[in-house]
């Protein structure tokens, strides 16, 4: 029954998305108030039915209804409840359904907020309806999660054990909240082009911020997961799947900044529209890269092209349609901005130049090997060294300039005064650089530079905030100060681990010891432990410093019989300024195991920084909502 309810709900959702599209676009005419209320109703109805379909799939997974092919392929009765639920979005069909659910949530939020006036809202709902229509058709035609299996198997095939983890249970919904959140910005931008509305950015800002916060947290969660689950002690691998989430983040960050200028002074109006289109396009491309199988091999995509071709067609349709609309309408919205070379506008422009170059770097680094293989058959690898040479300098240069932005006034800023005010932060950065060069090894200019830039970002945020006069000004600046300081905190973590990481790789038998970065590790043997759906080899390793025991750690190696795979469960002891990281390898001889140990100085700051950035996003969201509410009361819009 559950399957039928789910499928029926999906079909009704498809019909409602069609209604939402038609009535949304019809509602752009000033007199079509009826169409607008239909579009609103359709948005709410869409949310109800998509949620029903999603709920049906979650329920089927919880009760292990293996008569559904999707559940049989991806679940198992022994799986803990949380992974039965998160397993729903651990596979292709379910994750596409989650995608549409998030889209429906944003659509209902747009309908409820009515920001930017009734006509803009209506057009935005039309665009959202079109996206929902395309994705629902995609699900029903190529990726239906409610396909039946007859006869149902006795047991399910289980979920990839790497995904049976808390980090990966929450990472996809967070990332989708970001990816799909950009659809709302995209919808407002397209709506603005359709009805020739100049002031759309203010209406879209809460959605923009929400999406950015979710993307920031989603990427950080993914990186944290890779760090503790893969067992290599690394936090970012420049893997295409990671890159697919970084590209929309870079462009969305550029968009947040450019939209600020558009909102305040009307500058860069068409550029902001273009960024809104680009950021969602990159979300779609990211979805395509991850979901079509094109990454594992260009040829696997060609062998089973149905899904890939469908998503490709959607991307071409969405991007092509939006760009055509842009080319047609944007010139009529353009207004020449006027400002001095030393101004907030110039700073935001530079921010966008660097972020665009950084995004372009990730884009070619990710897609070039695919394109080259498809076109010429030549296989190349684009690995971390490429990004270290290209992305890193571009991004570091951007970070150096960051603190000047908030200090410069709109239209006409005072660069000399900014320098003078930020001088103490510059001093702190120099002291940090000299200290790093003098007291730490290895002595590299890169290391000193990275720490100096991190110190510069954090110190200048504090200096700047202290210099703001009134409490109200401080509150308004808090968002950017937190976000910029967060970048500095993350950079501290990246630089610390990259420069000072120690590693030890030993085969240890019971009672044997090895030393790493001032710690002595004593291997006390391995015990077999049984988990709910896995068997583990659990090591006991005693950590000693100066002859005293400071911790007992238990890295594990798990075998999941249902899935026939094994995973590494690292043991991490963190002091916030440093991580001691242990992973258990294979058994070499009887009782002697491979033990991999890392000391990663400052590593936790990488994710702490992302959290601080997200807090900055929340602060911006909070102050934006407060300010718009206040001004809405002041200039109440005339009733329809």
């Amino acid at each position, binding site marked *: 029954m559950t399957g039928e309810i789910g499928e029926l709900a999906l079909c009704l959702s498809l019909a409602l998305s069609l209604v939402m599209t038609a009535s949304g676009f019809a509602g752009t005419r000033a007199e079509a108030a009826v169409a607008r209320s239909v579009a609103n109703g359709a948005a709410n109805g869409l949310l109800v039915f998509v949620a029903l379909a999603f709920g049906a799939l979650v329920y089927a997974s919880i009760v292990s209804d293996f008569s559904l092919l999707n559940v049989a392929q991806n679940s198992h009765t022994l799986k803990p409840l949380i992974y039965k639920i998160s397993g729903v979005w651990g596979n292709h069909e379910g994750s596409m359904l989650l995608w549409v659910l998030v889209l429906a949530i944003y659509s209902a939020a747009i309908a409820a907020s009515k920001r930017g006036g009734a006509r803009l809202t209506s057009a935005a709902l039309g665009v959202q309806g079109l996206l929902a229509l395309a994705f629902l058709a995609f699900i029903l035609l190529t990726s239906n999660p409610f396909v039946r299996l007859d006869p149902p198997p006795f047991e399910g095939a289980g979920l990839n054990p790497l995904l049976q983890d808390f980090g990966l249970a929450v990472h996809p919904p967070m990332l989708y909240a970001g990816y799909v959140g950009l659809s709302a910005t995209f919808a407002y931008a397209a709506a603005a082009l359709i009805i020739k509305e100049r002031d759309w950015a203010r209406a879209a800002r809460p959605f923009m911020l929400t999406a950015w916060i979710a993307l920031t947290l989603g990427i950080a969660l993914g990186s944290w997961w890779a760090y503790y689950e893969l067992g*290599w002690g690394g936090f970012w691998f420049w893997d295409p799947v990671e890159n697919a989430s970084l590209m929309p983040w870079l462009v969305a960050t550029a968009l947040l900044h450019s939209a600020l200028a558009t909102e305040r002074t009307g500058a860069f109006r068409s550029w902001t529209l273009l960024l809104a289109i680009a950021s969602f396009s990159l979300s779609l491309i990211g979805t395509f890269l991850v979901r079509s199988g094109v990454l594992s091999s260009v040829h696997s995509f060609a062998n089973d092209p149905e899904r890939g071709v469908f998503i490709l067609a959607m991307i071409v349709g969405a991007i092509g349609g939006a760009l055509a609309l842009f080319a047609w309408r944007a010139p009529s919205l353009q207004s020449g901005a006027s400002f001095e070379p030393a101004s907030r*506008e110039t700073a935001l*422009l530079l921010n966008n*130049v660097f972020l665009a170059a950084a995004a372009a770097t990730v884009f070619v680094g990710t897609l070039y090997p695919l394109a080259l293989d498809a076109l010429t058959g030549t296989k190349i690898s684009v690995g971390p060294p490429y990004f270290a040479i290209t992305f890193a300098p571009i991004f570091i240069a951007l970070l150096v300039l960051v603190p000047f932005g908030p200090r410069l006034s709109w239209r006409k800023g005072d660069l000399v005064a900014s320098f003078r005010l930020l001088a103490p932060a510059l001093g702190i950065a120099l002291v940090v650089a000299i200290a790093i060069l003098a007291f730490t090894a290895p002595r590299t200019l890169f290391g000193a530079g990275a720490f100096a830039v991190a110190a510069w970002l954090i110190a200048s945020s504090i200096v700047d905030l202290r210099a703001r006069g009134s409490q109200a000004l401080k509150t308004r600046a808090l968002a950017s100060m937190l976000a910029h300081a967060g970048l500095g905190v993350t950079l501290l973590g990246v630089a610390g681990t990259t420069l000072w990481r120690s590693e030890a790789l030993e085969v240890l038998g019971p009672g044997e010891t090895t030393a790493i970065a001032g710690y002595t590790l004593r291997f006390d043997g391995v015990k077999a432990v049984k988990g709910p759906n896995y068997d583990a080899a659990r090591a006991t390793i005693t950590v000693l410093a100066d002859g005293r025991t400071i911790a007992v750690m238990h890295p594990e190696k798990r075998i999941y019989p249902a899935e026939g795979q094994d995973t590494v469960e690292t043991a991490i002891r963190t002091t916030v300024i440093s991580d001691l990281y242990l992973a258990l390898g*294979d058994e070499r001889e009887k009782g002697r195991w491979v033990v991999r140990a890392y000391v990663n100085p400052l590593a936790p700051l990488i994710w702490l920084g992302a959290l601080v950035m997200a807090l900055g996003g929340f602060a911006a969201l909070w102050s934006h909502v407060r300010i718009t509410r206040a001004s809405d009361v002041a200039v109440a819009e005339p009733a329809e």
Partner: protein
Amino acid sequence: MRQLLLALLFLAAVAPAQGLPAPDTLSNPVEEARARHLQKELRCLVCQGESLDESNASLAVDLRRLIRARIEAGDSDDAIKDFLVSRYGDFILMQPRFETHTYALWLTPFGVLILGAGIATWVVIQAKRRQQGRDRGRP
């Protein structure tokens, strides 16, 4: 069932040991450091996305041994890379070489940066001109 699981666990435990340079470490620390550095710049051909340094695949173990044998034989880093490329193709290099079919890859990042800087300069000049016009327009 339980016995089966234990048997599986046992099988996994006695499966051929993989992925560790420990017994193959070079005694000369400078040469070992060179080998570790090279390993990080070469891709494992079996498990994509990992370097030879990280991979557990048996091919990666063989290649780690091969790198060390070549270093001991006195080959330079570049000679070792050239040899591996001739055997496995460009795919094994984590950092693609700068050659005809990678010009676009290497030049795009800085090309976009320069192009963007050019456009930004033009926009700022235009905005400055308008600003002067406004200032002059004011009484």
